[in-house]
């Protein structure tokens, strides 16, 4: 009980509460409907439970041999048996009926104001604003590395432990947001409990779901389908803003993207590539290959790897573009040409790998076209 008692952690609004025992406070109509369905079911089940086990415990208390009970003789009654087949049938039929409307509503993704494509990667989320205000914005969102290290060290702290991301998804309040999910490697699942939304992200296929947040604020969820070792470390953070704030965010984001866009034709210096590569490595590769490049378990080491050391740059570029070992090493084609060139240069010249090779973005552009 230590954690809550000594105040080490507080409830996180929009995320889990300390010792939360119920569904999250709903922030959409669907979540509210689900909650009342759940309450309804709970009450019905409790009543039946009390009824059935009331009878049973009464019988346990009264019909004991030690109290001199003599066994009765009956062991059949078609009438009772028909009754207790039909009554439960009616009960479950009513339950199903009650849920039907919500099922239909949950599935209705038409007429969305904003469409966002969500891609699950091992182990982060990619967001792409496809249609509606903010169209064209895209970014990746991953767990704060500091929290990942806390986890490894066994020293967690913070109310948003394991929920803090570098780049939350942002949506306007009161608008119907259609989420299209897909995945790059294995199945992930995108969920936000407060919205009543959970949708698997399936590689090669698109699926959709929707929500309309009825208040502003931050809402959290976590990947809900086992996707490999970092499954517990790919949280989802949705920030719901008022219409004005959202417009501002869109403007800011667009400007930011324009600034950050790399020209793949640019020729870089070796040192600039190394510096950039180090960032890319830390953000994407270090989870598996480790900061020291030694890998671990099934993950191959990069330090001293023949493919990394190969004088033909294409060898390593191809691995990055297409993955290998059934995607145990996934494809990184979603990275930009500059990022791939940078990280390839970095791995070719870090740790014991002192090849002195420099890989330019244009080489990646050519490799991609093949």
């Amino acid at each position, binding site marked *: 009980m230590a954690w809550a008692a000594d105040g080490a952690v507080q409830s996180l609004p929009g995320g889990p509460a300390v010792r939360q025992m119920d569904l999250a406070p709903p922030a959409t109509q669907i979540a509210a409907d689900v909650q009342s369905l759940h309450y309804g079911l709970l009450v019905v089940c409790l009543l039946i439970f009390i009824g059935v086990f009331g009878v049973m415990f009464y019988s346990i208390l009264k019909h004991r041999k030690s109290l001199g009970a003599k066994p009765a003789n009956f062991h059949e009654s078609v009438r009772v048996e028909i009754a207790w087949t039909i009554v439960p049938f009616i009960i479950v039929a009513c339950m199903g009926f009650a849920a039907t409307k919500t099922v239909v509503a949950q599935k209705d993704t038409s007429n969305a104001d904003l469409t966002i494509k969500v891609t699950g990667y091992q182990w982060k989320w990619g967001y792409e604003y496809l249609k509606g205000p903010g169209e064209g914005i895209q970014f990746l969102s991953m767990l704060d590395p500091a929290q990942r290290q806390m986890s490894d060290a066994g020293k967690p702290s913070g109310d948003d432990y394991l929920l803090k991301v570098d780049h939350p998804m942002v949506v306007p309040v009161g608008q119907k947001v259609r989420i*299209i999910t897909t995945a790059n490697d294995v199945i992930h699942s995108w969920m936000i409990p407060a919205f009543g939304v959970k949708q698997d992200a399936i590689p090669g*296929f698109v699926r959709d779901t929707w929500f309309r947040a009825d208040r502003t604020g931050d809402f959290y969820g976590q990947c809900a389908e086992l996707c490999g070792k970092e499954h517990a470390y790919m949280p989802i953070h949705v920030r719901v803003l008022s219409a004005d704030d959202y417009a501002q965010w869109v403007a800011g984001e667009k400007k930011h993207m324009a600034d950050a866009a790399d020209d793949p034709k640019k020729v870089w210096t070796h040192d600039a590539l190394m510096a950039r590569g180090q960032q890319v490595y830390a953000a994407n590769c270090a989870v598996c290959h480790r900061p020291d490049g030694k890998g671990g378990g099934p993950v191959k080491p990069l330090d001293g790897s023949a493919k990394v050391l190969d004088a033909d740059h294409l060898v390593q570029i191809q691995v990055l573009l297409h993955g290998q070992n059934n995607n145990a090493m996934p494809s990184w084609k979603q990275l930009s040409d500059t990022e791939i060139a940078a990280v390839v240069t970095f791995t070719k010249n870090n740790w014991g790998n002192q090849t002195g090779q420099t890989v330019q973005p244009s080489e990646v552009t050519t490799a991609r076209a093949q």
Partner: protein
Amino acid sequence: MSAANDSHGTPYYFVPQPSRHPAMGALALFLIAFGASQWINDLSWGRYAVLAGFLVLFSVLFQWFGDAIRESEGGQYSQRIDASFRWSMSWFIFSEVMFFAAFFGALFWARAHVIPALGSLDNQLLWPDFKAVWPSEMPGVTASPAGTVAPFETMGPWPIPTLNTALLLTSGLTITLAHHALLADRRGSCIGWMWLTVALGATFLGFQAYEYMHAYHELNLKLTSGIYGSTFYMLTGFHGFHVLLGTLMLTVITLRLMKGHFSSKHHFGFEGVAWYWHFVDVVWLGLYLVVYWM
């Protein structure tokens, strides 16, 4: 061994003596499974374990069936045991049907759902060039969503599969004729029909091998040819494997017939294999329709 005998000296129910075959069989499967799991991961010693496992397995099967044959011919098997064998063989065949059902289900799902979904409007987001046609390979259409599958031609029903259908149907007839001959105590003609059945089965396998070669070399249709190649080879391949087993079983039965085993009243070994053969036949009809025609 059961003590109670009926009036003919057959035990009421036969319970065999302790036997080492089961444990040896388990050892064999351990060697095979362990070896195979290493072999397919490029550890070449695995293949020796697999080989050793199969050797043990064959010797176990040989001795185990030998025991069963001796018991049967020694009159240990009563009518009741005969009924047990019948039940067990029917349910075993049912479980085989369910195994094929998984693969038929995969084919059905791929055609009814996966290909249309991959080519649907929504999925254009991911695979803009993919058109939902089955087989997912036509002029102007990529063979697979990612375009990673080399172009191939599909396998039509003509001529080999149709020929094979005729062969199997005929073999179903010949084995029935053999059965009737056995029932009428015409052993010579029974053996003749049996050899003919074996020959038909073997010819089927020969044709199928030829068909595979043709597919690989001329049609470029391979196990790796996307979902079409996967379902095509896995379905026909598992079927072919069952034909192979069936043919071996038929051969053994025929050799036993030649040794004088079985009587017109008592020949469940024969019938069990015949059932199995009919089952293989029926699965083929399903394949012929669903894989080659549709």
